[in-house]
């Protein structure tokens, strides 16, 4: 299968085949591997935050469980479901691109973006609730933790983790929606075909990675100490 494609590319000289690659197959594999290398740097980026979170949570377990009561797990669960739907439509978009179904590809990219934006909308509602509830640490006049004064200081640490981790994740979502916009414009220009769909594939890898980060953020930030009221 692989050889056939390579041979076809060489004979027809596909317009998207760069001269330093032997075949479309080789070009595609190189791009995929390159994207995985980038994702590894992303694992290091988020991994550092997850590691710091682990250390502080194991040090202040009660404070983290108490502070987690200020997160709304229903919003978190809804957003998880929204992201999973967007991942499904992204996977289907890549599939459509591979089969050369241009209309389906464009439609599925739009669906992916809509769900990505819905996620960001819910996140904005949550951030606003924290702002109104005076749960924004480090900003004078927006921090009040009088309901559990024994955890007042550690709760700021927990909320810093919350805002940094979900904030960087949301930033990745914004970048992801930007990527999808670019891919959609390329698709409309007729860049892609069943032989060439590399940008769709590697943007999809990025989108799924951002989904995975949220799959871990959801239980770690929203679902601690849900079995009892700790205040």
């Amino acid at each position, binding site marked *: 299968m692989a050889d056939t494609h390579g041979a076809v590319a060489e004979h027809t000289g596909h317009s998207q085949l760069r001269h330093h690659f032997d075949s479309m197959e080789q070009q595609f594999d190189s791009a995929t591997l390159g994207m995985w290398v980038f994702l*590894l740097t992303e694992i290091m980026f988020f991994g550092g935050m997850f590691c710091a979170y682990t250390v502080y949570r194991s040090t202040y377990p009660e404070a983290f469980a108490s502070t987690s009561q200020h997160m709304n797990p229903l919003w978190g669960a809804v957003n998880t479901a929204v992201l999973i*739907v967007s991942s499904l439509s992204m996977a289907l978009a890549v599939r459509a691109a591979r089969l050369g179904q241009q209309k389906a590809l464009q439609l599925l990219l739009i669906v992916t973006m809509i769900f990505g934006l819905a996620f960001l909308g819910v996140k904005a509602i949550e951030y606003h609730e924290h702002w109104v509830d005076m749960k924004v640490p480090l900003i004078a006049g927006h921090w009040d933790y009088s309901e559990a004064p024994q955890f007042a200081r550690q709760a700021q640490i927990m909320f810093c983790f919350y805002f940094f981790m979900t904030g960087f994740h949301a930033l990745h979502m914004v970048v992801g929606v930007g990527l999808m916009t670019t891919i959609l414009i390329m698709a409309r220009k007729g860049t892609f075909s069943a032989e060439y769909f590399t940008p769709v594939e590697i943007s999809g890898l990025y989108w799924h990675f951002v989904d995975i980060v949220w799959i871990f953020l959801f239980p770690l930030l929203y679902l601690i100490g849900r079995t009892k009221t700790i205040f």
Partner: protein
Amino acid sequence: MHQIPSVRTYVIIWAILTLMTFVTYKVAQIELHEWNIVVALLIAFFKMMLVILFFMNVKAESPLTKLFAGAGFFWMILLLGQTLIDYISRAWMPEGKMW
């Protein structure tokens, strides 16, 4: 190029992922003491594997790509493992103080 999975496969994976999200949400409300976090992380790990193998299609990728994807796990184990060994063992020291 690679074999193209069917729409059916993707939809089944999506259904399992959504179901597991519901399960993790519900299990968090059951008192399992220190096992709550273990169950939550196991479910998250399972969901991650489904996304990696099916949505990201690593199942069908070249061995080199699989190696690189696996390297991410190895690095996370080193990072979390070594760090936790340090912090947990500090409490074992006589007159040990965390910080």
